[in-house]
């Protein structure tokens, strides 16, 4: 699977579901980088067929509307959209 990794401060598992064309996804990814967080991300629009539908199924368990960006933190919490305040709060900055 085309999951990419950005190394940084480890705060549990952090997974960002994003689209390669989406500016709000891009801002979210940039914010995580600015915060220096260790996270994984995947561009769902670059996947095809079964691989794409499986990852959507996983993502929709957290965000049933299936919208982007979807950020899943430590398999406990989900933040939908570029919620800068919430993201900063979760990572304690």
């Amino acid at each position, binding site marked *: 699977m085309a999951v990419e990794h950005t190394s940084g401060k480890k705060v549990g598992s952090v997974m960002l579901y994003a689209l390669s064309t*989406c*500016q*709000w*996804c*891009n801002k979210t990814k940039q914010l995580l980088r600015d915060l220096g967080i260790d996270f994984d991300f995947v561009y*769902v629009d670059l996947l095809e067929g079964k691989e794409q539908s499986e990852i959507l199924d996983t993502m929709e368990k957290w965000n049933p*509307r299936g*919208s*982007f960006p979807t950020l899943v933190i430590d398999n406990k919490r989900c933040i939908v*959209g570029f919620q800068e305040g919430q993201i900063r709060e979760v990572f304690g900055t």
Partner: protein
Amino acid sequence: MTLPVFPDALIDATYSDLKKEAEDGGYRLNQDIDFTKNLIRGLLKNEQRYGYRACPCRLATGKKEEDLDIICPCDYRDPDLDEFGACYCALYVSEAVQKGQQKLSPIPERRPPRANRKNPQPLTPKGLAPLAALPLPVWRCKVCGYLCAREQPPEVCPICKVKKDRFERFI
């Protein structure tokens, strides 16, 4: 970001076209030009890979009939402009946002989720029996609400410029 590199001249020309089209119809593009041009890169990438300008902030299927509602301008633009001051991706904004009087915040997705999307066109409205006697059907543009009474919808909406396939039978 993995956006293909489009020549600046193409981005600038597309931006000018969209801006003129928007303003002619009473709409406004996002005043943040760099952000807007990145959205345009996304639209052009989608046009390249799908054959139509699907919303850059939504996942298209590549099957046009399933993606019609998210072809820019999408069916959800006007209600989101009314409620949040911007469309979902924020290509289009309200006057208050454009003038800096209202701040943008993330817009919740209005499009139905995947599982509920295959809604059949509910366009045999009930209680229309008397109106069936009208000499012509009435067509509605799903993007901007324009109505017209004629045999077929127009090729292009005269208000918001979307194509014929974005019309629904209204009466």
